[in-house]
């Protein structure tokens, strides 16, 4: 009823392979975008923006980057946190060396630094696979973190070893730094995330995306049908690390305002990996669903006791939070091991044939 596809005829291959073969999908997306661009900015508080919306978008973007590598090209990576760090430090160096640089340009350029780091640490993927590759990317994680701590040039020899975001303007509006109004930062992040998501949707549906999927499903077979494995794997590392680097730059410049090296430790890599896995590997939508579960839900749960006036200490809420989120993760993975995106796909299929069971 809600998702009735009867009457939506496809008369050409073009329409059959359109981005939204079912009209309702497009309507749903339009509704979500309406909320993101109009409803939230009109209603949300600073707390909603800084603790929920902006972090969800940034984490989803990082997971999207990882998902291209792990979900589409099948190369497991544990270095996401460090690649985010490369993006953040590159952006910081760029804007301190060239203070007049436009922040969009700086962020776009910083992605290339993390992409280069990603390709360099992706080279072993040509020889090793699976868990062994994960260990190689783990080396990237530890090495880069060590570099962020020891190479004082990266943080301009700051005594505290941390990087601090200066106030930066874009078209006359402060978008980064403490002076930036939260709405400007939110729109900046939202637009960047939308643009990159569109890019990711298209690249994964096209020729390049298909070579990645072929490599993921069986690399020997892919090689036999004429796919250049080196090109496919390294391009996946490049695109993935580029997006992850941009997410890292946004992470520090649009949200945190300051960062020390320890921010980009292995915990961050795991967090992004969990978002990608729970959201659903090999899906774009999954990253957003995963980020909602891992990033937004704990914040929401944390506000529940205060809203009801329950006398629970803040530390206890934190403990309960860990338990609830843990239980939910296990629960969701038991219900649908392929992640929340697959879960949504099942719901959608059921809605299409509703009210009939089959």
């Amino acid at each position, binding site marked *: 009823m809600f998702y009735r596809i009867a009457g939506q005829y496809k008369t050409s291959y073009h329409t059959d392979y359109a981005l939204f073969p079912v009209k309702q999908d497009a309507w749903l997306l339009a509704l979500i975008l309406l909320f993101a661009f109009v409803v939230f900015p009109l209603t949300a508080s600073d*707390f909603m923006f800084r603790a929920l919306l902006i972090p969800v978008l940034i984490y989803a973007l990082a997971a999207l980057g990882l998902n291209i590598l792990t979900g589409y090209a099948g190369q497991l990576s544990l270095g996401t946190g460090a690649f985010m760090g490369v993006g953040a430090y590159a952006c910081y160096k760029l804007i301190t060396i060239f203070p007049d640089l436009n922040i969009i340009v700086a962020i776009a350029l910083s992605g290339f630094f993390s992409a280069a780091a990603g390709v360099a640490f992706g080279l072993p993927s040509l020889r090793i696979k699976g868990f062994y590759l994960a260990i190689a990317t783990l080396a990237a994680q530890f090495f880069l973190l060590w570099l962020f701590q020891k190479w004082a040039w990266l943080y301009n020899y700051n005594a505290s070893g941390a990087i601090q975001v200066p106030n930066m303007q874009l078209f006359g509006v402060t978008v980064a730094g403490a002076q930036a109004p939260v709405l400007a930062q939110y729109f900046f992040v939202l637009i960047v995330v939308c643009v990159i998501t569109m890019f990711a949707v298209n690249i994964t549906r096209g020729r390049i995306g298909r070579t990645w999927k072929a490599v993921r499903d069986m690399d020997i077979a892919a090689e036999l049908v004429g796919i250049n494995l080196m090109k496919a794997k390294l391009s996946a590392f490049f695109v993935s690390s580029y997006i992850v680097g941009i997410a890292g730059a946004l992470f520090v410049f649009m949200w945190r305002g300051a960062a020390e090296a320890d921010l980009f430790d292995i915990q961050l890599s795991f967090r992004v990996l969990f978002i990608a896995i729970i959201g659903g590997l090999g899906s774009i939508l999954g990253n957003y669903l995963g980020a909602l579960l891992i990033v937004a839900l704990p914040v929401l749960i944390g506000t529940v006791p205060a809203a009801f006036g329950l006398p629970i200490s803040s530390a206890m809420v*934190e403990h309960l939070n860990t338990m609830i989120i843990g239980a939910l993760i296990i629960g969701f993975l038991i219900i649908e091991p392929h992640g929340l995106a697959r879960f949504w796909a099942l719901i959608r299929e059921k809605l299409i044939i509703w009210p009939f069971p089959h």
Partner: protein
Amino acid sequence: MKFTFKAALLSTILAAGLAAPALAQDTLKLPNMSYRTGPFAALGTPHMNGQLDYMTMLNERDGGIGGVRIAFDECETGYNTEKGVECYEKTKSEGALLTQPWSTGITLQVLPRTNVDEIPMYAPGYGFSAMQDGKTFKWAFNPPTSYWDGASMIMNAISNGNLDSLKGKKVAFLHLDHPYGKEPLPLLQALAETHGFELLPVPVGLSEMQTQSAQWLQIRRERPDFVVMWGWGAMNAGAITEAVKTRYPMDQFVSVWWGAHEADLNLVGEAGKGFRALSWNFADSNSKLMQDVKKHAVDAGKSQLNQGAGEFDYTAYQRGILMSVILAEGVKVAQEHAGTPMITREQLRWGLENIKLDEARLEELGATGMMAPFSMSCSNHTGHASAWMVEWDGAKFNKVSDLVEADRSVIDPLVEKAAADYASANQPWQMNDDCAQ
């Protein structure tokens, strides 16, 4: 039925997220960012218990400050900077009078925002040393003493007041590899250069806190004349046990105030004899202040204190008490100046700037000998209280020195430069131009 229950649950979750909790008008909101969970909980918890218990005591004994009860709510961060942002925004939206970030990492994130949002930031005994410059850091306070003051006092104490006597000697600086641990480095480097001693920084990564074998191997090889420790959480206990294991002479091992923690020294007991720490507070469980806390908070069952472990006598717990004493004093001064008990953020800022904790006031509070007297002003947001060297005798800490002074002539120029650098990196930065001192 099932559907309505789910809908109700969903809508409550949504409502809880969307609606900021109603502002209660009859309390002074002084929230604290606690970390009773995570890797630093062991040292965080006694401090947070102390801060909370003093406020509880004021609520029970006096009905709050100036007749208004204090809402000393905690927001748990687990020392995680990400949670820090969340807690800052949450408490701000709830109408908090100030923010207490409780971590140098969170301080770095929150400091520029407080200047824009005009919220006082209270970082007692931690934070960014340059915050003493109240003209630049209009909204930030770190009484009673800063890390640079502490580093200078330690160097003065171990050289018996004559830094030139350290010439040619080697001082290892064992520190947490984190903004907090790196904080005193510029000062120590400046001192090393002028007085000709060799400074050997030995960083301890967050992942190596418990097993510092590599660091202590280096210390054993280099044979420094002193080891100065700037540690936190599990790092202190790790360093003290390693020092005992490698038989480093304890009388050459000195820590900043966080190292004066009985639980860490109890692990080694007699073997830790001679270990010294610079502490701006001294535990005195028989003082009137502590007896009041005991009567109104601890014995009344309103404290989260671990009494079985003797936490009440801990230097760390009583330091937490004093942190709240200073804050409550600021609130009281603000109320008297404003003529109303319900103060605003701006009025609290004025109050903190005009704290005068002299001997007479400390005696009135029942805290004589627990901390040194100090006062603040619009240009001095630290107060620069002096501190004592305390020494572990195998069972407890004893004062082994008179009040040690910091060397202002070395610190102030560094502060001035750091503050100017900070302001220029954060342009446009709001300075306190009204401050004439």
